[in-house]
């Protein structure tokens, strides 16, 4: 009997031990999840029996990939792309071939969406000439990507180099801003000026398709991102004058700059004109200056009543000026603008936005979109002299805007 008990116990125990210890997945290592530089060519060759090519971002922004009127539905009179402004086609879509040789871009993620300014989008920066062997580029290139993925930076960190297979996606312009996208029909009847906004336009790439198309190359490295440093007069010389050079401007859109020696003027852009923003009195019933209700309040990004355009506030060096853009959904949107006495730099993505109403051929104003408030006058925020230190203050209902 003793022997039989032992036998049965062993019979029961053996599958327990055997099965519970096998078949479990091992932990993944960084080598498992990031593509190694040395193996990249091999991986891409295996993926593209018909060959492949890595293109520079600016090549993707040019013909034959991006054309003036776009190839998508351009022959259809029924289903239009979104309206043009005058003779200028502000919206276009060029689909990229599904089949044939692989079309790749290789660049580094430059943005972080935690602050709320880059919702469901990535801005890429390319500093090496991958199209021609990989030498350093004279001028870094930038490109926007719209992805239908909330908290996209959680997967695609700032500083992460990625390589994207663009076949089957599209390159288009949204308010003249080039972006990697898919065609999307804007049918939002609840939009203000809905009729103007209806039509085909660049839309967000479905998350699943973007993840399929993208590989991560090595560990992220923010230090490899390059912010071109300018003061406003240099910027005017180097960039602002290019505003009317449509093709040149498109190439400059989405590049990274650090604008030095500027202060906020307390003004906003009013369809190309400059206007003073509204101060909040603190009265309980006050609507003027209340960023929840007044789109011209003296905060970075007061309400747009959910229209969703970025709010623009002027910075100046005393002579020239540029705009700093903030989404009303940004975490710092309801912080008051710093007083003019605080001087420092603003770091961000150079933006070039030309929607119908906003288009101002003579304005010559670009805007910079920072990732977070840390990139706004950090010198003033960290100033050793408390009298010159800017301490950001958030709007609070019932409390008047502090005088500084």
């Amino acid at each position, binding site marked *: 009997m003793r022997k039989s008990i032992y036998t049965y116990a062993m019979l029961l125990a053996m599958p327990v031990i055997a099965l519970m210890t096998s078949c479990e997945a091992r932990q*993944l290592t960084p080598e498992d999840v990031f593509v190694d530089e040395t193996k990249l060519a091999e991986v891409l060759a295996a993926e593209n029996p018909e060959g492949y090519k890595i293109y520079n971002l600016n090549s993707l922004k040019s013909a034959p990939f991006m054309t003036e009127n776009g190839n998508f539905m351009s022959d259809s009179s029924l289903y239009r792309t979104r309206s043009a402004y005058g003779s200028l086609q502000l919206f276009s879509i060029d689909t990229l071939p599904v089949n044939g040789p692989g079309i790749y871009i290789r660049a580094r993620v430059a943005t972080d969406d935690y602050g709320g300014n880059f919702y469901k989008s990535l801005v890429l920066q390319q500093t090496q000439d991958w199209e021609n062997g990989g030498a350093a580029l004279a001028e870094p290139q930038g490109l926007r990507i719209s992805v239908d993925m909330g908290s996209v930076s959680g997967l695609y960190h700032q500083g992460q180099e990625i390589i994207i297979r663009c076949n089957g996606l599209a390159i288009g312009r949204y308010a003249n801003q080039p972006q990697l996208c898919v065609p999307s029909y804007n049918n939002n009847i609840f939009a203000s000026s*809905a009729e103007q906004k209806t039509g085909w336009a660049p839309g967000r790439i479905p*998350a699943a398709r973007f993840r399929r198309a993208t590989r991560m190359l090595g560990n992220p490295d923010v230090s490899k991102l390059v912010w071109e440093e300018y003061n406003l007069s240099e910027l005017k010389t180097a960039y602002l004058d290019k505003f009317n050079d449509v093709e040149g401007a498109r190439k400059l859109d989405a590049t990274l700059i650090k604008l030095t020696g500027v202060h906020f003027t307390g003004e906003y852009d009013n369809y190309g004109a400059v206007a003073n923003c509204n101060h909040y009195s603190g009265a309980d019933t006050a609507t003027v200056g209340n960023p929840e209700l007044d789109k011209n309040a003296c905060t970075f990004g007061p309400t747009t009543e959910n229209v969703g355009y970025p709010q623009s506030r002027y910075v100046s060096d005393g002579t020239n000026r540029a705009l700093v853009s903030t989404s009303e959904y940004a975490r710092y949107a309801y912080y008051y603008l710093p007083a003019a006495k605080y001087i420092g730099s603003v770091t961000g993505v150079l933006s070039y936005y030309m929607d119908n109403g906003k288009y101002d051929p003579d304005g010559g104003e670009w805007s910079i979109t920072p990732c977070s408030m840390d990139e706004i006058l950090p010198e003033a925020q960290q100033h050793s002299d408390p009298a010159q230190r800017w301490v950001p203050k958030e709007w*609070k209902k019932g409390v008047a805007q502090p005088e500084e």
Partner: protein
Amino acid sequence: MFVLAIGLSAFAQTSLKGRVVANNTDQPVVGAKVTLANQNISTTTNVAGEFTLLYLEAMDEEVLVESDGFIAALELVSLKENEVNQMDDILLEPDIVAQAQDEVLLNLTEEEMTDDEGRSQAQASSSSASTDVFNSNTSFAWSTARYRNRGYQSYAENYYIEGLHFNSMERGQFNYSAMGGLNDASRYKEVLNPIEATNFTFGGVGRSTNYLMGASRYAQGWKVGAAGTNRNYKARVNATYSSGIMPSNWAVTAQLAYRFSPYIDNKGIIGEGIKYYSLGYFLTAERIWDNARLKLITFGAPTERGQNAAVTQEVYDLTGSIYYNPYWGYQAGRVRNSRIVKSFDPTVIAAYEYKIDEKQWFKVAAGYHYSWYSNSAINYFQAPDPRPDYYRNLPSAMWDGQIANPNYETSAKQLFDDAGAHYPWGLFVGRDMNGKEYGAGFVGHDGNIVGPSVDEAEYNDLVDLWKSRDNKTTQIDWEALYAANYANNVTDPNGSARYILERRHNDIQEANASFNYVNTQFDHLKMTLGVEGKFSQGIHYKTIDDLLGANQWIDIDAFADRDIKELASNSGFTQEDIANVRKNEIAPDYNEVVNNGRRFGYDYRINMGNLKAWFQNEWNFNEVDLYYALQLNYSSMQRTTNMLNGRAWYLTKVADEKTGADAWKYYGSAAYAQIKAWEAAGALKAGTTYAGQAHHFLDPAFKLGATYKINGRNRLKLNALAETRAPFARDAYISQRVHDRVVENIYTHDNAKNLKDFYASSEKAVSADLTYEFNYPIVRGRVTGFFTQSWNGSELNGYYDDEARTFVNQAMTGIDKRYMGIEAAAAVKLGTYFTLTGVASVGDYRYTSDAVAVSSAENGMPMTQNLVTKELVFETTDKVLLKGLRVSTGPQVNASLKLSFFHPKMWFADVTVSYHDWNYLSVAPSRRMQGLYTGVRMDGTAVNGWFGDTYANAIQTTDGMMVSATVDTDPTSPTYGQATYENAVLDEGGVPVLKYPYNIMTMQESLAATNPLNRFIIDASVGKLIYLPNRQSVSINLSISNLTNNTHFKTGGYQQARLPRAVRQGQPDYQNSVITANAWKYPSKYYYAWGINFFLTVTYKF
């Protein structure tokens, strides 16, 4: 045993003695029911398998012997007057089919499917009792369809083990996994039909089951078995040893059972992506004296198993399989499931029975039970939702924002206006989930008509990824989760992991005791007195299972962090003011860095106490039996927490901003006064335990019944019950993970000034049934009509609300339900070998009134504002239009026909054809709020976006007239909260009918398959018992469920609570929401019955 004892004193009467033994083994059958059919007298066998029946009439009698696990036997006997009539041994044959079915059933009830929102598929009623034709033929056959006895929720069925109550006090259900795989532990049980006279508890509106685990019930010897199946586990081995009653008067039985399946790496089959390991043990010992017995029992089943989830019809269609499981993905080439349940319920029980004298005896039992139950899930911080079936990842998400105003009903008009110009909005997309076409467009690869407002290539690309079951698209992309963490380690080495696999623990610790006393010293009267006590503690916390390559997790709430700006500005605070709101523990010394197995997130307990006392008098006369019983039930609950959550702290801030008597009522209890005082004194310390307010309830119940014995073969039974029931803890606390605030009617109860207030929180029920039973040699069965009405039920739901744009808890009270129907069963013997059994249950289970729901944001954000005074409103109250809807507890029409075959050479076979209908989807209360139809809630606040507004305009009018609705918002008015609709077309419940496709969002959907043939399920089984020399035997049984592989049988599901909404640009908050016509944005999720599946067992006894 006791019936035998009563009879020992009088042998001068006509009596019958006998012994029941198992064939071949010659082992006594303990607890078998022996009935004389003509005189309708019954008893049970003692530990030696013996029975005695006294005071009989001399006549020809049929002796019916029934016992769990055996085929019923019928013997004829001629009773001689004034003699002790001694029968030969009655041999019972084991019913190996029933035994195998019990085992399958036990497995099924354990495998609850739980989805992301914690919903579980309804359990099937699992109690079976071979002595009732209806019960024994429904519990297995109808389990596939998730039939529930009389349509009651699972908490209405009470489960006992040796007289100790084992339903959870927190959630009401019985946990089958405690006995996982231990088919011998759960073999013997007594099952009481609803509201009958009982002997171990007072009972309730549902059935009561008492598992009997005394070792003396088990036949002496070894039993080893092996089983193979294609269900969630693939194989099972087990061994049982029973000593029988030894010379020392002890009996010991022990069982070990191991069930297992490695990860299933096949897509589209039962159990895809699931693993299963469970080792069950059962040990019972019993000491028998002349007038007493002691039972010592312990069992448990450490189990680790993967889970699967309900998904939308779109996902089932795209993947082409009802077995698609979104919870798993590949990691380093191997399957890994993100939802792994680990459970272990070690239980110890001691029970003692003592016979004081021939006419009185008692039974006392005590038990202790610790339940480790946890499941894992992916949590994420500042990273994309990792669920593959997240709605944005599906092709239908491309339709979002593409759906035109349905007021323009023809596609021609949608494309062009009257002048032939292009209309400002494009064509609507598609076809609904039921296949109804709507608009023109191209046919996508998935068969849906799409566009032209969606790009064909783009749509089909995504469809192709789904149809090809692309691993990165349709399963969890573990590589991406690791990559996110490894990248984060580089960019922010001290930052929070982007993804972790966390383990959510819901442990229970409980101790219970019971005492039963029976007295029969008065003629015709049996008095039973019972006392039951139970202390239970629900223990809830989180730990980290796997950091997925990250350095650490920072313990703050991802959603509070994300919403902090909106939360601050909506409430008039700055982000700095409410910096604590993100924290899961606000004490300054709390270490938010979690990188080991310690508790984080939440760590609280719900302490629950219960004391019941009941008595029952049963009067037995020749023609009539009567009984009545009364119970008083005291219960209490109290939450204590070891972590002070920032959202709870924030609510104290909001309360401070409020004035008036209501502020305290809404935002805290005694615990929070303490928090505020300690915070003010700077004395908050991590690890401190805070006790919330205790809540006490007292619930009476009364029942009575009568049996009229028309003759020995026919009887009528009438039973009735009235009771109140305190709410379960899960429905009492508005957000128990965050704070200890209770629903408003418990606040009313706690501050009761009259009896009505005292019972404000209790559900009240009356129930009655009438049964006709018949018992002939050829045919036996019963017909029962039942009626139950309950009032003032409560239910808590949580969901993301797109109107308030935050997570909302909705406490619903005043739920009234009516259950009525007929149960019928008849078993007919067809010759020597065949029995034909017909069973049917036709019910009508409905909500009989509208309910009232109070909604509040979990993070304390205002729900809306008064559009005139601009005052913020933190709680909204509205009517939920439930009246007339069906209760979704499984099919309400069920019928089956079973043909059983039994050959004396021990061949068994049966075929069962079952039909199920009237099965309805659970309705989301958030989609049936009165304010959605009228624009104004019961409390007078305006709804931000409703079905009748200019943009949706979905309420169906008569003759194109404008709909208008008024709601009486005067709380003093007798018609407070009632709405009057003008010009609307109303449905049966008085609810305005919505235009297609809005009706899909609100109407209760039938789950019955479109093709009536798919409402049938066919099961079959075949078995053979081979007797070997020396009392050995081998039994083989093959049970096949759903023989025709019907994969169109939906068993349940639910509407998602979210409504599709769009923001109307250019409008201020609280006036900017529009319900869109995109009924496909948050469609219902469904559970399907498995297709063909089998269970093969081989058992060797020696």
